[in-house]
């Protein structure tokens, strides 16, 4: 048990730094105006850290606006699939407010923010894979075109 868990955060950190580098690379590739614009249009309202997070960052709750069970449940599943995560849950505190809360508690080797980001990345990767698979199947035209 301990072997695996000690290795995991190191791997994740490497992944994290790679993706950060990629982003920088992409930004350098684009022209400067676009880069400036991206800085200006950063969405500071979309996701916020709720009060009550632990000092070491292993436990935190986030509030995401304009999202519902569609993302909430899928994201919760992905975060719970992370072996570093002890607990993850989401709720929509009030049906007439378009807010969704996600709580993440890790065992301590990964921060809640890292777990959240890993969950989002995993979810995006699954979608990318299913997208490709579906496109390949549809283009193969290996199916009936009439309802049986």
């Amino acid at each position: 048990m301990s072997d695996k868990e000690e290795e995991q955060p190191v791997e994740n950190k490497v992944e994290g730094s790679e993706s950060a580098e990629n982003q920088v690379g992409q930004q350098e590739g684009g022209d400067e105006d676009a880069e400036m614009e991206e800085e200006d249009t950063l969405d500071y309202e979309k996701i916020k850290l709720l009060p009550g997070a632990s000092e070491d960052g292993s436990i935190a709750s986030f509030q995401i606006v304009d999202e519902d069970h569609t993302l909430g449940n899928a994201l919760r599943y992905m975060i719970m699939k992370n072996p570093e995560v002890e607990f993850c849950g989401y709720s929509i505190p009030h049906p007439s407010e378009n807010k969704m809360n996600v709580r993440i508690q890790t065992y301590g080797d990964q921060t809640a923010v890292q777990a959240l980001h890993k969950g989002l990345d995993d979810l995006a990767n699954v979608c990318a894979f299913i997208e490709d698979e579906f496109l390949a199947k549809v283009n193969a035209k290996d199916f009936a075109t009439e309802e049986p």
Partner: protein
Amino acid sequence: MTDLGSNIIGIEEDRVTNTHSNDFPAYSQSIGSGWDLEAFKKKFQLNVSFITERTANFDLIGLDTSIANAYRRIMISEVPSVAIEYVYIFNNTSVIQDEVLSHRLGLVPLKVDPDLLTWVDQSADEKDKFTDENTIVLTLNVTCTKNPNATKGDNRPENLYRNSNVYARDLKFEPQGRQLETFKDHPVVPCDPDILLAKLRPGQEISLRAHCILGIGSDHAKFSPVATASYRLMPQINILQPITGQDALKFQECFPSGVIGINEKGEAFVKDPRKDTVSREVLRHERFKGKVTLGRVRDHFIYNVESTGAMTPEEIFFKSVRILRNKAEYIRNCPIGNVN
């Protein structure tokens, strides 16, 4: 009772068992492996049964309900499509009120590729709001008159009057600006031309102009690109003891036709569980007690997507996957602020 870690949902006479996913590391180390994309790719299967112009039926196997359900929800409420949103009525002397007629018009599915339009900026000035890039204009001008050549003795309104019925096909596309070019090959028409919008009598008239814009189903159902988008889980029938003779025939009758076959030895076997509706009829009969169990495969989703006609059903599903991906990537790149 099913084992922990089994992906079969048990269906018993009066209850369902093993309904929740529990493949999480925090639940149990033995059944819950951490997320592994490569393992997922190996396990995942996609089979397309059929795709017609309006309906698609396909199976996604090996993914969790939370993700399958997200696609379904997105297809219904978040894939954008085009519908009539603003109606400017010049004259309406029919018996159907302006607001009721407008509502009916809004619900008419239109054959427009949503990718050809941009979103309307709701914060823009009223005069700059609608452009040839984000709005499609349709007009409806119908006047009912007496038919001078009506056949005597035939009292049907279609014979006595002209234009007594106003149909969706009477909506005429008026290309604006560059739309003459962009919509040259596929002019905007209602997907179903025979939708009845109003009834008129001689002397009555409808004259209006409608603006169609992009929207999503969570704002109004008229923007939903699907008539239905649903999934069901693959049924599973386990025959524990041989069922033969008269019993086999009776057993066959407990299921929809085609589900159970009978072989040359007169023994019942499961031919096609996909056709089963899981009615549980078989569990009501004493003679089959202990001989059969019913279940559903938790990670085998049989999707049925029915388009309203604007987009092909496979395009709608494809877009739903892309939308979920974009959501995840967008939040991933957002800075995490503090609640004030």
